[in-house]
């Protein structure tokens, strides 16, 4: 994306995509809790439409669309830029936020006359703030600007964890916040070093200027470690299981499906957009190795959880590991790199939809049964068929069985690992699938067996349908046409300067 003009036609859409939910946040503050829900729900279709419009513009132009804020081009000004990956992530974020908001109505929309609750106001404001921050992350073109977006994302995510004010959720939120803060300060230090070297923070400008200097690697290492802390890559996952397992289901879906992807997205930006011209093979192997450990530990721990939400949360730890195979498998400009890149992005999307669906379904199970202990699930699938169908379909994608986005991701990654001769990565990819099969089996086998469960409250059909819809989307990714993968390549730097 070297020769992008400062502002392209349609560039204002990017500003709108960020400002729309941000405006929703402000309006919700002013108008209060009862209106906040309506505002958030009302904005979701508009935001979805905007994201689709951005995607259409990018597809039509075949190149990124950009907007220079205040008409000031980089390096002094800040650019917003949407390429194929940004557009796809924006659409995915809009869908998942919309689904979670719709699902959360039952819990957080206050009927007329009832007193306003602080929890509901928090939820509606924070979910819009997360959305705004995510959109900014997806289109941000300036590393410092992205730092601010990343912090906004964390500040919006933390209150969602402790929305009900129980001590253990507060503790989880505090762990999350404090660890994330150290991550962001590490990222910030890297930003300072890069600016000190090159006097620019715009991604495309930096990409032209960086060289393989020790200071650049220091900056990259600091930024990456910070981003890993926020992504909860093993062994920096101390905050994730309690935070994701204790948040309300609608919040967990957004946290697990989207929020951890925000910082991962920045790691992608760093390694594939800022540093692609440098020899990144060895650090990529470090990242991939951490991913492999995450797959192993996350899956084994998921196998051992007694509660469904903790199981799903640990499965997130494992699935995050898969994301990091993209670094060794898509590095450089080889014939196989596009396979690895497509596989990595497919994993981001498949996990986002599948995990969001599973958290929503886990919330429904917990509400219907009054608990989420897996040992008490015997026969539950007959009582809650749609919900367990959702868990099953989501699990299918996690296991990487066809037809599902998870399968597509694995298939592409395996092909990349074979074609690149890095066949060692196929071991964690396949082994993780087997372990995932184990923990999905643990949920489904007793639920589908004969037995009776006591249903405390029958879940609303519409909420079950929302969760199922997300799971179906995770499956539908398997049928993504070739054009979709070409779209993902739009704006990805061609690695012409690649040394090896």
């Amino acid at each position: 994306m070297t020769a992008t003009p400062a502002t392209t036609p349609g560039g204002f859409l990017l500003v709108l995509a960020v400002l729309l939910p941000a405006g929703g946040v402000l309006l919700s503050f002013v108008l209060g809790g009862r209106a906040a829900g309506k505002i958030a729900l009302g904005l979701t279709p508009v935001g979805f439409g905007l994201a689709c419009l951005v995607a259409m513009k990018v597809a039509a132009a075949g190149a990124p669309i950009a907007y220079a804020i205040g008409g000031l081009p980089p390096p002094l000004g800040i650019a917003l830029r949407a390429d194929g990956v940004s557009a796809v992530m924006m659409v995915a974020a809009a869908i998942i936020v919309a689904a979670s908001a719709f699902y959360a109505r039952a819990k957080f929309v206050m009927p007329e006359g009832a007193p306003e609750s602080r929890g509901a106001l928090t939820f509606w404001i924070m979910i819009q703030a997360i959305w705004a921050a995510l959109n900014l992350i997806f289109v941000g073109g300036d590393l410092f600007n992205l730092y601010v977006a990343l912090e906004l994302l964390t500040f919006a995510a933390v209150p969602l964890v402790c929305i009900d004010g129980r001590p253990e959720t507060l503790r989880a939120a505090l762990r999350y916040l404090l660890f994330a803060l150290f991550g962001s300060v590490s990222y910030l230090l890297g930003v300072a070093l890069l600016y000190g070297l090159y006097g620019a923070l715009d991604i495309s400008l930096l990409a032209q200027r960086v060289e393989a200097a020790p200071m650049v690697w220091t900056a990259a290492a600091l930024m990456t470690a910070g981003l890993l802390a926020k992504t909860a890559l093993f062994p920096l996952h101390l905050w994730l299981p309690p935070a994701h397992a204790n948040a309300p289901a609608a919040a967990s879906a957004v946290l697990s499906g989207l929020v951890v992807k925000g910082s991962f997205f920045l790691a992608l930006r760093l390694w594939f957009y800022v540093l692609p011209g440098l020899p990144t093979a060895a650090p990529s192997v470090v990242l991939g190795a951490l991913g492999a450990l995450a797959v192993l530990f996350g899956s084994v721990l998921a196998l051992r959880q007694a509660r469904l939400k903790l199981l799903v949360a640990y499965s997130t730890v494992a699935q995050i590991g898969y994301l990091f195979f993209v670094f060794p498998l898509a590095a450089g400009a080889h014939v196989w790199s596009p396979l690895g890149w497509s596989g990595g992005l497919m994993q981001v999307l498949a996990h986002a939809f599948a995990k969001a669906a599973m958290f929503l379904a886990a919330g429904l199970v917990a509400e219907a049964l009054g608990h989420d202990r897996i040992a008490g699930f015997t026969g539950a699938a007959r009582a809650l068929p749609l919900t367990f169908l959702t868990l099953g379909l989501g699990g299918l994608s996690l296991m990487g069985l066809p037809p599902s986005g998870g399968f597509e991701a694995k298939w592409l990654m395996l092909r990349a690992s074979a074609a690149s001769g890095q066949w060692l990565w196929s071991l964690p990819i396949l082994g993780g699938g087997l372990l995932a099969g184990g923990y999905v089996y643990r949920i489904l086998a007793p639920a589908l067996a004969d037995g009776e469960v006591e249903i405390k409250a029958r879940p609303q059909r519409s909420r079950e349908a929302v969760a199922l819809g997300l799971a179906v989307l995770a499956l539908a990714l398997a049928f993504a046409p070739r054009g979709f993968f070409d779209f993902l390549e739009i704006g990805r730097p061609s690695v012409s300067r690649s040394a090896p």
Partner: protein
Amino acid sequence: MNASLLAGLVGAALVGLGLYGLIAHPHPLRKLLAFNLVGSGVFLVFGVVARRGAAAGYAFDPVPQAMVITGIVVAFAASALAVALILRLAVASGGVSLDPQGPAGRDAGEME
């Protein structure tokens, strides 16, 4: 020793102190202070960058200063959020501990 070097050394010392606090002090409030120390160290590094004019070619580059101001606002917001959480936790459980399963902290009895 010129001013840049001094600022750089102080920045490094602050980051080091902060990291020690992060690793060694279990109390969340101390960790928050440690975060602010690391943050201050990083801001000093930004100062050094500004002073050297960086590659932008200015005598004193204003951009890092703008970034530091933004950074301070963000760090302030973060600290406020963390303090609020610590206070809520203290009220809700009568003690402040980050350890979910260990025996440390007076509120261990209330956990699941």
